[in-house]
């Protein structure tokens, strides 16, 4: 079991309010990603759950038990750090088995479990090596091995893939997701990369300035963002925002439309006319950055190749069914 509930969790460092009251329900076995810009408090929130920081207020319940006064060692959680944080003086075997040794498991049982974990992560040939003799990806696997071998109530991941190169990151992303589904253990994963969040999560928590902006499944966040911040943060390239008369016509202070929901018309009648500033041809997609005069710069995405170039005049027609409306304080308006 690994059900985690946060009730009005707060954290201040001196006069600085980092977490301003977080409420969250994380179901057993789910994969939850905390995402947000740097400094939004996502790592702090994770460290509060881990017990590496003390809360300034509120409750953290693990399987219904308030753990705010329980030391990290007793919370039954395991953590994978951004820096891997392997013990440099121990072999891979020693690193993975350390938690079991601390739990007082016999040598035979420890070895058996360590070897099983190593086999899952393709680490068997490296069991007797020291961390410094491993590559970045292998070190990351050891850190994950150390987390899974203890069969914790939940895994906590603190930006675990940010030190890996792009190709390896994609591969590890898939492996971590697969492993979590296979083990069925609750996982909380912190990242600033919204692609990681969208691809890995069952549910995403979007944080900004120490507040939870929205909590929901990736597609919920994409299709029904609660406010301007979430709308702008989720999705790549970013959602276009238009204010003024165009928005007022729709009865909103701001309207938003994603680049993929804009139709590009060559001869500028109707829609929003403009001049292409930059055209990016990726083969699979074409991204156009269009200077639409009073509306500002707008981004449009076309699936496939579109032979338009910088300087060409186009007209952008938003799909009326996919326009997001926001009020003056930035909250989404529902029909």
């Amino acid at each position, binding site marked *: 079991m690994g059900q985690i509930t946060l009730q009005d969790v707060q954290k201040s460092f001196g006069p600085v309010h980092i977490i301003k009251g977080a409420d969250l329900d994380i179901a057993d076995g789910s994969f939850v990603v905390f995402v947000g810009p740097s400094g939004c408090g996502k790592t702090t929130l994770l460290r509060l759950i*881990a017990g*590496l920081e003390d809360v300034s207020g509120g409750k953290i319940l693990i399987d219904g038990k308030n753990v705010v006064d329980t*030391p*990290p*060692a*007793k919370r039954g*959680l*395991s*953590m994978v*750090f*951004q*820096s891997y*944080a*392997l*013990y*440099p*003086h121990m072999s891979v075997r020693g690193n993975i088995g*350390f*938690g079991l040794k*601390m*739990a007082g498991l016999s040598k035979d049982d420890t070895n058996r479990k360590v070897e099983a974990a190593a086999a899952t992560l393709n680490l068997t040939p490296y069991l007797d090596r020291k961390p410094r003799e491993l590559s970045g990806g292998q070190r990351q696997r050891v850190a994950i091995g*150390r987390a899974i071998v*203890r069969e914790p109530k939940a895994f906590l991941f603190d930006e675990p893939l940010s030190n890996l190169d792009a190709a390896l990151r994609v591969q590890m992303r898939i492996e971590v997701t697969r492993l979590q589904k296979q083990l069925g253990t609750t996982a909380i994963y912190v990242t600033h990369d919204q692609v990681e969040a969208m691809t890995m999560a069952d549910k995403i928590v979007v944080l900004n300035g120490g507040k939870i902006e929205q909590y929901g499944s990736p597609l919920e966040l994409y299709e029904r963002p609660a406010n301007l911040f979430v709308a702008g943060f989720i999705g790549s390239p970013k959602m276009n925002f238009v204010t003024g008369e165009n928005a007022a016509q729709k009865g909103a202070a701001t309207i938003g439309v994603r680049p993929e929901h804009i139709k590009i018309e060559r001869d500028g009648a109707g829609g929003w006319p403009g001049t292409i500033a930059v055209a990016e041809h990726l083969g699979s997609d074409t991204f156009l950055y269009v200077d639409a005069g009073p509306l500002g710069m707008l981004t449009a995405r076309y699936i496939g190749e579109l032979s338009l170039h910088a300087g060409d005049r186009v007209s952008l027609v938003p799909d009326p069914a996919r326009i997001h409306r926001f009020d003056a304080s930035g909250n989404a308006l529902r029909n």
Partner: protein
Amino acid sequence: MARKSTTQRVVVSTIGAWFFGFLIFFPILWMVLASFKTELEAFAIPPSFLFFHWTTENYATVQERSDYFHHALNSIIIAGGSTLIAVLIAIPAAWSMAFSPTKRTKDILLWMLSTKMMPPVGVLVPIYLIFKTFGLLDSRSGLIFILCLGNLPIVIWMLFTYFKEIPRDILEAARMDGATIGRELVYVLTPMAIPGLASTMLLNLILAWNEAFWTLNLSTSNAAPLTVFIASYSSPEGLFWAKLSAASTLAIAPIIVLGWFSQKQLVRGLTFGAVK
């Protein structure tokens, strides 16, 4: 071409390094040579470098006149004891400052170091009186106490720098792995800090071994370490350079041997943090 100039540079800098190394070492060499000369040859002008009448007579006389082993034992006890106590006090101090620093940590560290800026002679009279009152004059425990206090700031500074280099994440990982503070200390922190601990102790041992000001002023015979042993040969009546040299050679021999075998640790200790 580039290769040739690199070789040349290596040759020149090697010769230069050996030259300066020899220059620094020369007084010690001269002292060792003098210890094997007769008193007459020891201050002969022009001095003879290698071609003199070699004799070990000075060493025999020195051992006969004053008990080398008594002084050496005192040196070992005082230097060793003060190092051990200083390290035991410094570990928790450095630990808390490295891992839970406060706003005042930097000030405390600087304040501790500032005590080393005061000339010791400035407090000689009060310390002497305190020692006299508590019956610590010419006692090993008194010297252990004063040398320990004298070197404590340096020991804390060195350990603090070492502990600071240990990534916090690793300690937190151990905590997440279920280690209590005690086990975190035994299984994770201490093994990682051993090189730093060793070089700190070594440096402190050398400093305490060579310390002359307090040992000369606060001891006479019972607790007198090797520094007092050497000083007893620089007498106002007559010059005994050969015997003084023999006494000095005997006094520095143990620490030079120790230093030689541990030079790798020492260099690491002294340059730690300078290069990442």
